[in-house]
């Protein structure tokens, strides 16, 4: 059994050696290098266009954010600032009323 196995191994080795000889290294065609460089360039262009695409997305997002800040958030802040000043006014007005009450000898 071992001998048969050994013979099988030897025949398989011989087959692999013959396979190696039956498939010699092929000569590259004349088009090999130009095609390879075309593929490299195509990949480079694709990578650049992906970057460009992302850059465009970033620019658009920045613009949208700017518009949002300029058109919505700033007026809202200004509105808040205006209401806070009127609140101060209202507060001081209330204090002065208390003071008037106190002066008038009213309930504390």
């Amino acid at each position, binding site marked *: 059994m071992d001998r048969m*196995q050994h013979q*099988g191994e030897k025949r398989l080795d011989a087959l692999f050696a013959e396979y190696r000889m*039956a498939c010699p290294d*092929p*000569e590259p065609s004349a088009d090999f290098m130009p*095609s390879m460089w075309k*593929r490299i360039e195509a990949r480079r262009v694709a990578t650049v266009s992906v970057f460009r695409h992302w850059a465009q997305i970033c620019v658009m997002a920045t613009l949208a954010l700017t518009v949002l800040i300029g058109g919505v958030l700033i007026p809202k802040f200004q509105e808040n600032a205006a209401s806070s000043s009127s609140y101060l006014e209202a507060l001081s007005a209330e204090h002065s009323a208390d003071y008037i009450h106190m002066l008038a000898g009213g309930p504390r």
Partner: protein
Amino acid sequence: MLVEFELIERARSGDDSAFNQIVQAYRKRILGTISRTIGRPEDVEDVGQEVFLRLYYSLDQLRTPEVFEPWLYRLTVNAAYDYLRRQRRRQESRMSDLSEQQVMLADAAAGSKRRDEEQRRTKIRELAQSLLGQVSEEDRILLTLKEVEGLSLKELEKIYSVNENALKVRLFRARQRVLKAFGARENSEAVSKAGLGSADDSE
């Protein structure tokens, strides 16, 4: 090494002419390895270009020029593996192409002696490829690199970044499967020959 370390360094730093020289030095060897691994002559250049394309865009990740060859082989193994996986998905539709291609190869061979030699080679290629087809794509490539390309375990260790013992186990199992298929094929051929012989005797 087929090229100087300095050339690899230049290619790493973005010198396209240095890269061109590297490709010219290695392309024949790489195409040979791919050819014996994938077994389809018409797709060899396509896979070879893919290997060098991957090399071009990964050269900056190469730590030192000393590991260039294992690196290139790893890229070759990966490209061949990707090809074989894609190939498996469309295997049925491709079966008819194979016979056409073999017919074309046989027709192309001029003269009967040359044709006989080409037929013998085609048979060997068919047999070896069908036996290697008995194992997974990964093992097929590993076995081809070891048994057909003649790479040592040390070289394979560098390519696969796996320790020698793990590789030995994988190689042993893959080889046993191929050996079993080879034995079964030889037996069936012997039986069919004996059957033919007895049929001839009865006539």
